């Protein structure tokens, strides 16, 4: 199967990404004209939604800010309703490199696995800040301990999966903990996965705009709470 017979959806959950989201959507359209691009605007109070629509994305709007996890889930539902064969998740703050979508798609199209996970640590092309590197390494250990997956990266929002895998993966964590949840779902459904090296760019914009490392505590408490009381 080549990619031209596949319906490929790129999901871009976005919160306050006016000024960058338009450029990303345009670049994806330019490189991959037949992909469907879905921006899930999570009640941004800037012009994220307008910019994305103007650049040619399908825009879904949450009327209350729910978080990246919920946005991904909305995007997946939309993609599946529209007969997606392959679903790509990508950050909309410019930290992921558009041309690297190929790195995720190639192994998926050749049937190597059900889900392909981008890893910023497999090759050393990302200038990850020291504190973030430490937190992520701890996260990798936590993932290993908690779900049994021995990965080289965790909480990397750049991944691609088949429709079937996406239908199995239940996302109930609205915010950042969903990234761990996806990994647990891989284990629970015995999905096959492959990690591929991708670049994560740390720019002035992303550093000012992104997550605080202390958010890791919130993620861990959410996961423990869910494990103990919600499932």
């Amino acid at each position, binding site marked *: 199967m080549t990619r031209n017979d596949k319906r490929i959806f790129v999901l871009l959950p976005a919160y306050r990404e006016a000024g960058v989201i338009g450029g990303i959507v345009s670049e994806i359209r330019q490189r991959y004209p037949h992909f469907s691009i879905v921006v899930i605007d999570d009640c941004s109070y800037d012009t994220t939604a307008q910019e994305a629509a103007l650049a040619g994305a399908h825009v879904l709007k949450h009327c209350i800010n*729910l978080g990246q996890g*919920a946005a991904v889930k909305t995007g997946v*539902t939309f993609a599946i309703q529209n007969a997606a064969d392959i679903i790509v998740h990508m950050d909309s703050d410019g930290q992921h490199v558009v041309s690297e979508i190929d790195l995720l798609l190639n192994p998926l199209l050749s049937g190597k696995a059900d889900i392909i996970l981008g890893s910023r640590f497999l090759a050393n092309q990302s200038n990850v800040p020291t504190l973030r590197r430490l937190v992520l390494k701890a996260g990798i250990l936590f993932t290993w301990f908690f779900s049994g997956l021995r990965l080289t990266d965790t909480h990397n929002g750049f991944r691609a999966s088949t429709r079937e895998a996406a239908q199995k993966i239940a996302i109930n964590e609205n915010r950042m903990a969903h990234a761990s949840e996806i990994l647990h779902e891989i284990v629970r459904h015995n999905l096959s996965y492959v990690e591929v090296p991708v670049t994560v760019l740390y720019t002035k914009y992303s550093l000012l705009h992104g997550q605080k490392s202390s958010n890791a505590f919130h993620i861990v408490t959410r996961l423990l709470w869910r494990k103990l009381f919600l499932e």
Partner: protein
Amino acid sequence: MVIQVLVTAISLFVVGKAATAYVHKRIRIPAFVIWALFWVAIIVVVWQPNLTDRLAALLQVGRGADAVFYLSLVVIFYLLFRIYIRFERIDSHITTLVREIAILNKRVDDTKK
């Protein structure tokens, strides 16, 4: 004496509130009974603190006041937990709605085009 009267007044006020809520069908009878019993028990204990000594003996802790204190903590933690679970459920319901609205709106927009 002052504290007894104060606590009694507050308790009666709360029971009265609960009674109104029941009359206006905002709560059901079991909720009213439990709530009323709880506040009546407080009135009893505040006038007859020695009663709690029996409770203390039953629980094998030193003083009546301690027994009441420990029991209250357990009840409060349990209620907190229940509230948290309820909160979590409301949260997930809101999420479902917001996600659904997003997808429906998109469909409406697309048919307008």
